[in-house]
Structure formats: C-alpha cells, structure tokens
C-alpha cells in the first residue's frame, strides 16, 4: 500500500480533507527523517521506535569476482516494533476495535456485517 492509500483512508475515517491529511502525513514523515538525521531517537508509543544505528566498517567481498572490498562504517535508520504492534501482527485478533465511529469496511480481516 502507498502513501496515497494511507491519505485516503485516514481522510475518510476522520473527516478531514485528503489535502489536509496528505500535508500532515508528509510533514510527519519529513519530521521523522529530520529528527533521525539530527541524531534523535523517536518513540511512537504502541507503534515502535525509530533509531539511527552505526554499522561497523567491515571487509566486504564482490560476489562476482571474490575481490575484497573495504566497507566503511555507516549509519542506518532502524525500526523496532512496539509491544502493541508486535502483538497485533502475531495475532490480529488482539486488535482493538477501530477507535473511530465509522466502520472501516476495507480494513481488517473481519467480514463486513451484512446489512
């Protein structure tokens, strides 16, 4: 799924315009990247933790030629899922009902109630 679909879904559920949601989601993703590049760790309760970690320098190998290639130390963004997200993914039955009044019929595995 893509950012576009996320925007549509959130807009529909909350009653904001797609434009408003799009601006906030983009702004949030940009802010997360900015925080990480400033060296900050970001903890989104129930969702997870974004953090920058260093990967040590190592000797790599060109798989084609077998040649040894030095790889310098580098920083990478990592994500560690939080407690709730881990549980939901392991057992979707643990998902709480949507916290919004409108049912989101195209989400979740539960079959839509027949009207």
């Amino acid at each position, binding site marked *: *799924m*893509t*950012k576009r679909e*996320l925007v549509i*879904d*959130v807009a529909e*559920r*909350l009653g*904001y315009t797609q434009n*408003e*949601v799009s*601006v*906030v*989601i983009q*702004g*949030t*993703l940009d*802010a*997360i*990247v*900015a*925080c*990480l*590049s400033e*060296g*900050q*760790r*970001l*903890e*989104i*309760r*129930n*969702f*997870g933790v974004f953090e*920058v970690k260093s990967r040590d320098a190592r000797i790599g190998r060109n798989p084609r030629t077998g040649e040894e290639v030095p790889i310098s130390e*580098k*920083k*990478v*963004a*990592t*994500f560690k*899922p939080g407690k*709730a*997200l*881990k549980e*939901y*993914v*392991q057992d*979707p039955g643990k*998902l709480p009902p*949507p*916290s*919004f009044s409108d049912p*989101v019929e195209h*989400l*979740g*595995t539960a079959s839509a109630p027949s009207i």
Partner: protein
Amino acid sequence: MTMTKRELVIRVANTLGMTQSDVAKIIEGAFDTISRTLADGERWELRDFGVFEVKTRASRIGRNPRTGDQVPVPERRVVTFRPGKKMKELIGGEESTEDEPAEASGETPAF
C-alpha cells in the same frame, strides 16, 4: 535524546501552522491504519521514507542459554522496516545525492 509522539505532533503543527489537535488526530489515525493493515499482512511502501513489511520467521529449535535445554520456538510474524532513498541519504551522511564527479584535480597531463 528521545522524542515522543507528543513532541512530534508539536513540531509538525508548528511547521505546518495547524493546530496540535488536528495534527495529533491525523498522526494517530495514520499509525493506527498502518498497524491494522500490517496485522492483516499488508506491505506499506512510503516513498522516500521506507517500507514496512510483515515477515514470517520459521519455527526453530532454540536453546535456553542458562540451562542449555532445547526449547522449540514456534513460527512467528514480525514487522520489518527498510529505509527508503531519502532516509538513507540523510541518515547515512551522504548529503549530496550526486556521485562525486571524478574530478581530475588540476593534474592536467603535461604535454
């Protein structure tokens, strides 16, 4: 330095000139949608940011490190994240995206 959702909301609200309440609701809603659909096995590709995906880790025989007992570890599903292009560039410290132009620094062959 750990930033929380609250601080993220304030930062985004200030940047966009929107109320913290609106920004908080939308951010909350977005993470909620992502969590729910990941639980459902969906893959999320947020351009420039990264990809969230659920992977299945096979069951294996683990070992209690204290006693050395063998313990079966059942198959489980985990969320993985792979940073996207912009994220990699900004975090990795590679400020410029363009590859270093192989500049022959003043060493013009003497002819």
